[in-house]
């Protein structure tokens, strides 16, 4: 059985390969266009931008306001010690934790995770790590979100992918 593969390069074959490469170049333009089209537009973010969360008088002491930070659910709390902001996606399996005033906790309903509303630390339940804190600033009667307090930490939580 003759199964030796032979390869002969002629001038004609070489020209064909070059023409093929040009065709690939043109095709890649089409594919790039489609990928660009499919690429989510909301991803383009500038990290330094201040995001207005609320006016101070919208959030009286002991209340909260939900907002979006880098396309992730987040929550602003007005604690006796001042304003606090955290990403509210639970670090356990990605449900949204919410403010439970009667117990003074951030509570994740999926598997009963409880977080400290002052620090984001895990109080009880299965979450493996605290909620990521968001740096905020209060100026001219309004509260702005600045950045993640610890972007390196946010990168380690899979539910915050693309947000840090």
């Amino acid at each position, binding site marked *: 059985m003759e199964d030796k593969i032979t390869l002969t390069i002629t001038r004609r074959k070489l020209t064909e390969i070059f023409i093929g490469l040009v065709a690939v170049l043109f095709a890649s333009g089409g594919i790039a266009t489609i*990928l660009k089209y*499919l*690429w*989510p537009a*909301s*991803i383009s973010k500038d990290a330094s931008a201040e995001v207005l969360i609320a006016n101070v008088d919208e959030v009286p002491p002991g209340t909260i306001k939900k907002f979006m930070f*880098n*396309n*992730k*659910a987040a929550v602003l709390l007005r604690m006796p010690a001042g304003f606090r902001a955290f990403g509210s996606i639970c670090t356990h399996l*990605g449900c949204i934790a919410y403010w439970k005033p009667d117990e003074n906790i951030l509570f994740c309903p999926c598997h009963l995770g409880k977080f400290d509303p002052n620090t984001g630390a895990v109080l009880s339940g299965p979450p493996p790590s605290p909620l990521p804190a968001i740096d905020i600033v209060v100026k001219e009667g309004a509260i702005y979100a600045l950045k993640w307090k610890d972007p390196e930490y946010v990168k380690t939580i*899979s539910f915050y*992918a*693309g*947000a840090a």
Partner: protein
Amino acid sequence: MTLSDKLYKWFDERLKLSELLPPIVKHPAPENVTSNPLYCLGGTAFLCFLILVLTGIFLAMYYKPTPVEAYKSVERIMTEVPMGSLIRSIHHWAANIMIAAVMLHMLRIYFMGAYKKPRELNWVVGISLLLITTTFGFSGYLLPWDQLAFWATKIGTGIAGSIPVMGIYISLILVGGNDIGPETLTRFYALHVLILPATVAILLVLHFLMVRLQGISGRL
């Protein structure tokens, strides 16, 4: 001469039916195939596909792929549209049966050794069809936009996102953003009603052509 003979003759004169059709249509299946119901699994899957296409087209006339309307429109199909719950239930059960039939069909091919030379390529096409069928089920799962749909999609796109290196890009294009939202719904809808059916149709043509060219393998 009856009317049907006349009609046949009219078409025959123009399309050469009597030359072209017999070799395609008059092709008796071998005895060992017709006597064994295990050989019906592939056909069952195909029948399910046809039913799914038909019921799917009707569902698409009432379904609205937006976060506000999706669940409401499914609710409307189930409660208000006459025969709506029947159409949707048929779609639901045909989808489940199709997955089961495709899996069993694959097992039959495997255990009967029907994937061996010269049928390797048909095995490859078959496995692609199997994967697309499961993707079909997965993308259809999101469309009712309820809690089950949301979390199943969260997990499914999370699995896609866990692929090394490419994962994050794949999940971004699939989800259409950082998190599941309106973009995800329309993307999955386009996938479910346009891209996947077209792909399945093309692969099915190849699948059936190869069955005819290579014949059905005998039993071991």
